[in-house]
């Protein structure tokens, strides 16, 4: 919980999402690693060469001095074996400066030996040193050891440089990451805009002209949106046309039935035709309403919710004279939205409430403001709805208790739900403890752009 909150704050503060940080951190880490590795290679190569050079120089100068001393001692006639070591020991600054080595003259006689006993043959190497007598001496030494690399690295990368590299690589990574995430975010917003408002706009030219994978993606999304839009509007058009085309024959059917009725006023069958025509006409109406809700609604208007409620209540009073509607309006309940869609939603929900209300029982209709929403509540005292049926009621052509009522097609609530959702609102149903059904339409006051 806490972590997700922190995450939300981060997201809001920086306006970036996971992908941004993932790319950023990956690039940064990679660039830092590459730099460290390069540094390592450079430093190790550079310093070991230098170290070796210095080592061999030291070896040779020490060996030359020893050989010089030896030759001097030899020319003086005495060859004191331990004296050289003692002498050379006195000639260096500290004892650790003495390099382990073994010097052998051209006859194979060891003239100097210092700590070489334990050095294995494969760790040994040798150099030749010439004394003043121009005789060669073989100097056996151990191979140079690797220098202490990390000390060297830290020593070489002085702290300020390091900070600079750190920041520079962070900047470059952030730029890279932003460059990838920004167009993705843009495309996201682009498709969301279509989903919410059915606005078909081409993505900006700069996006399409990128020529990279993201440019292709933008072109593909744009293509997809156009296709989807076309399919959707074709479907809408089809539905609309079919319904309209159904109306014309229906009107003719009604007229024909009426003519038959004139000649044969008592015909039961003609009455049946009339009632079925009414029913079909109402169904076509509902389907048209349903399809209309899917259509693009370019203008958001101010809707006076109270006035809409009153108007619908007036209609219902004519339709259901035995059901009193008690209206309790919150003053100035206004929202920005689509009046026609809202009117349909109200008509269907209040109509249902009246339909299921027992004679004389009131339908309670009220509006209230809560935060940035207006809530319209419709309460009836009818038989109510079981909890498990509420979800199903919102599906088209579903009817509570599987009863086939003589009026209604099970479309009313789906239309209402669609209309409410078009406003970004929600439709809630409750079963009050004292029976009946409470339907609440929660509508945001301002439409989100």
């Amino acid at each position, binding site marked *: 919980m806490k972590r997700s909150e922190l995450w939300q704050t981060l997201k809001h503060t920086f306006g970036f999402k996971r992908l941004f940080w993932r790319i950023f951190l990956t690039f940064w880490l990679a660039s830092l690693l590459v730099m460290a590795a390069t540094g390592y290679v450079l430093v190790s190569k550079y310093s070991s060469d230098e170290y070796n050079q210095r080592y061999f120089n030291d070896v040779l100068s020490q060996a030359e001095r020893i050989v010089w001393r030896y030759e001097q001692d030899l020319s003086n006639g005495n060859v004191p074996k331990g004296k050289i070591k003692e002498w050379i020991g006195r000639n260096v600054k500290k004892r650790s400066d003495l390099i382990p080595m073994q010097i052998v003259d051209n006859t194979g006689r060891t003239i100097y030996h210092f700590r070489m006993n334990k050095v294995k043959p494969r760790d040994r190497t040798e150099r030749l040193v010439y004394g003043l007598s121009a005789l060669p001496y073989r100097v056996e030494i151990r191979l140079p050891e690797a220098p202490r690399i990390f000390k060297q690295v830290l020593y070489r990368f002085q702290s300020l440089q390091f900070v600079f590299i750190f920041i520079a690589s962070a900047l470059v990574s952030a730029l890279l990451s932003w460059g990838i995430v920004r167009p993705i975010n843009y495309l996201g917003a682009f498709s969301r805009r279509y989903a919410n408002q059915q606005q078909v706009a081409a993505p900006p030219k700069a996006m399409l002209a990128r020529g990279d994978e993201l440019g292709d993606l933008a072109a593909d999304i744009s293509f997809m949106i156009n296709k989807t839009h076309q399919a959707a509007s074709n479907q809408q058009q089809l539905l609309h046309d079919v319904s309209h085309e159904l*109306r*014309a024959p*229906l*009107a*003719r059917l*009604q*007229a*024909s039935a*009426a*003519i038959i*009725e*004139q000649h044969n006023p008592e015909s039961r069958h003609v009455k049946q035709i*009339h009632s079925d*025509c*009414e029913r079909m*006409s109402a169904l076509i*109406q509902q389907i*048209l*309403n349903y399809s209309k809700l899917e259509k693009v609604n370019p203008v958001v208007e101010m809707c006076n919710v109270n006035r809409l409620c*009153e108007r619908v*209540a*007036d*209609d*219902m*009073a*004519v*339709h259901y004279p035995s059901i009193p509607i008690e*209206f309790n309006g919150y003053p100035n309940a206004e929202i920005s939205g689509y009046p*026609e869609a809202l009117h349909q939603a109200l008509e269907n929900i209040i109509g249902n409430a009246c339909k299921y209300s027992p004679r004389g029982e009131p339908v309670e209709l009220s509006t209230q403001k809560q935060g940035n929403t207006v809530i319209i509540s419709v309460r009836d005292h009818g038989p109510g709805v079981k909890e498990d049926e509420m979800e199903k009621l919102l599906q088209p052509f579903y009817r509570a208790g599987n009863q086939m009522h003589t009026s209604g097609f099970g479309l009313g609530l789906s239309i209402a739900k669609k209309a409410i959702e078009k406003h970004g609102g929600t439709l809630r149903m409750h079963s009050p403890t004292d029976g009946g059904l409470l339907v609440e339409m929660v509508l945001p006051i301002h439409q989100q752009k």
Partner: protein
Amino acid sequence: MENEKYKILLVDDDEELCALLSEFLQTDGFVVETLSSGDAAVSRLLESDEFDTVVLDIMMPGMSGLDVLRNVRAKKQTPILMLTGRGDDIDRILGLEMGADDYLAKPCNPRELAARIRAIIRRTQNANAPTQAMVHAELHGIVLDSGSRSALVNNTTLPLTGAEFNALSLLMARVGQTISKQEMTEEVLNRPLEAYDRAMDVHVSRIRQKLAAAGINDVIKSVRGVGYQMLTPSPR
């Protein structure tokens, strides 16, 4: 009604439907002429006063019913019944509307159509009947002359349709009282109020517009959920 046959003009682009409806209405005692285009309807109506009522479909290709109404109303007061598509954005259509006498959603039962036509004819016949008492009423500077069925504001005649005149005189006769939409529909349009029936609202809004154009504002009040009321003039 039997001694005189009323003549109806039926304008709809669906010719088969026109034929059926005219058969029905003829059997019902009307004389019916049908036309299938708006242009034809306009020229026919402008040249002749013989029709007692015109039934006009709004949705027609080319010249729509609203265009026909606008053209005819500019010159003639022939009663017109509009057939609106059911569930069309009715308020928007009626907002554009130029003064039809009544409205009926299509598809409809032809019996309902016949009843509406009779209601319109009865209303216009009553209005033309010379037996009606001459009533002069004056309120808010509006002078009603029921003899000539006209309303005068500052000696200028308001161009009111029959239904509008009836509605205005009803409101003025019962000044200060709220009259329900139901009662107004019955009194003014000679027919019962129906669900989704906006005819009365349209007539009242047209009266308001015309009064406002003559400089008289806010004399007819809407009483929410009930109906309309002509306000009592405030004493000066």
